[in-house]
């Protein structure tokens, strides 16, 4: 099993009003060192495969087709091998 984390963010050239609003709120709280905030989303997928290359390829394909909109968004993928549940290891 693999866990694939897909982080989707707006492209740097696309304005992020949500990020700007969060930045203003942080400044209001006194965190004046905050130069920039970009909001995004995390999609955590659990994949039924033990093949890292296959996990990477299928996640990439899912991100391109559905998870991110290439017109406005970029994505990053990170993969972590999961311990298989005890039951399936014994089987």
């Amino acid at each position, binding site marked *: 099993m693999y866990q694939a984390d897909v982080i989707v963010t707006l492209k740097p050239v696309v*304005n992020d009003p*949500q990020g700007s609003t969060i930045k203003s709120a942080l400044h209001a709280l006194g965190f004046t060192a905050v130069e920039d905030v970009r909001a995004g989303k995390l999609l955590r997928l659990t994949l039924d495969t033990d093949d890292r290359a296959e996990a990477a390829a299928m996640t990439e394909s899912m991100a391109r087709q559905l998870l991110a909109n290439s017109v*406005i968004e970029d994505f990053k993928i990170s993969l972590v091998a999961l311990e298989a549940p005890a039951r399936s290891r014994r089987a």
Partner: protein
Amino acid sequence: MKTGIVVFPGTWSDRDCAYALHDVLGEPVRYVGHRERDLGDLDLVILPGGFSYGDYLRCGAIARFTPVMEAVARFAQDGGLVLGICNGFQVLQEARLLPGALLRNASCEFRCEWVSLRVEQTWSAFTQGMRPGQVLSLPISHGEGNFYADPATLEVLQTNDRIVFRYATPQGQVAPQANPNGSTAGIAGICNARGNVLGLMPHPERACEALLGGSDGLVLFRAAVMALQAAAV
């Protein structure tokens, strides 16, 4: 004008569209389910406003993969008239039937108000009979209507006269104070290269009689009727 109104789970303006076209204009209307694959003999397909699939992931992202959208893409390719309103506009962009994307409003607020739109071109199917520079008053109701396209795409839209409506003052001036959501170049609606597919954020179906505050929305539906009549000659 035989009109099909697509209903996804979460669509909410389908009945308003049917009211404007059938009850007010007397045109035949039927609802088209999201699993349907055959649009039959329709002349116009409307993708109405709402929150298809709860706006999960991105507005329109899930709706775009429904069986009916394959049929809508073929229908558009064959020259059928397609009108995407609000969430329907977002679906058309996700389906790549129209370029660009709609971001969260610059204010981060949901905007529900009447706006003035300046008619930018009159060659497309949905602007037949309008005058360039004509101002229409229509309501908006959205949180994500901030039109974005990269500079190259904007250039294509501009040079090919595909920007159909811009937010303007009631006098017809495109100005930042008349832009309710931060849209690039004040863009409220665009069409495809052929002019048979239109997407816009404002709701023409909610401006179909004086009791609702105005009837300028009918101008747009009547334009589609005129376009079909002209095509039939």
